[in-house]
């Protein structure tokens, strides 16, 4: 989905259903394509696609009622928000630890559960925040600083 705006930032909103393995990942592939269509550099669109995919599959595997991926594109930034309303993460530090996973066996059989999703999200974001509370849900905020199309390689590394 693409909301029309007038010259300002563009906002793309995708809803993701819990447990929907059949379609899981399609929104992210589409986001990558939409970003390319909006003139985002290929490397940045790829990073955004990776972030969206890991967030999307976490919504599919863990969320109670699905969630939303919202991508906002402005001249210098791509902002990605992945949000759900539960169940929330008990120990965020633990969840961010490479290799930690509570993926159920059906998800492991499909190749999930490396415990690397949140790490991949962080590695591809120039800025990353995660908020999660049991009962109210999880919200991940990521920012990509867009490289200029003619820039020769280095991406900025301002992380907090």
């Amino acid at each position: 989905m693409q909301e029309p705006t007038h010259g300002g930032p563009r906002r793309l909103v995708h809803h993701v259903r819990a447990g929907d393995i059949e379609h899981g990942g399609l929104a992210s592939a589409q986001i990558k394509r939409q970003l390319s269509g909006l003139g985002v550099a290929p490397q940045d669109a790829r990073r955004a696609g990776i972030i969206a995919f890991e967030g999307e599959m976490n919504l599919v595997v863990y969320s109670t009622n699905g969630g939303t991926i919202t991508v906002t594109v402005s001249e210098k930034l791509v902002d990605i928000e992945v949000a759900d309303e539960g169940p929330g993460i008990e120990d965020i530090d633990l969840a961010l630890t490479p290799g930690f996973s509570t993926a159920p066996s059906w998800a492991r059989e499909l190749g999930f559960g490396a415990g690397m999703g949140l790490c991949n999200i962080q590695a591809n974001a120039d800025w990353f925040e995660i908020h999660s509370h049991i009962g109210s849900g999880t919200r991940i905020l990521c920012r990509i600083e867009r490289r200029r199309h003619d820039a020769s390689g280095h991406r900025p590394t301002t992380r907090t």
Partner: protein
Amino acid sequence: MNLHEVSRLLEGSILTESRREDIEIDRAYAVDLLSDVLALTDERTTLITGNISPQVVRVADILNVIAIIFVRGKRPSDSAISYAETLGIPIIWTKKTMFETCGLMYANGVRPCKNRPMAAPEG
């Protein structure tokens, strides 16, 4: 090696119709877990996998993977094949194991992709 030669080497078959047999396969990455695929930083590489979940081709698309080799006789669904078709990502299907596939390809000049951890400091 091109796609056609790799397929013959692996005694496999190319499942996609637009075969793009001339595509050059010079680098590869072998992995079953999706997040391990997504840690891949190098583009234009070939993906070797035994994972036939519907997500594999979507991940390959996001990462700009140039071809996918499915090993151990694991056949992706028809919808995954036609999705790859529309993306122009050719698929090879082989009964050989992951180990044998990698060994044969390495022996024939295919090299690991230059995968670096994205979080590593640059410069």
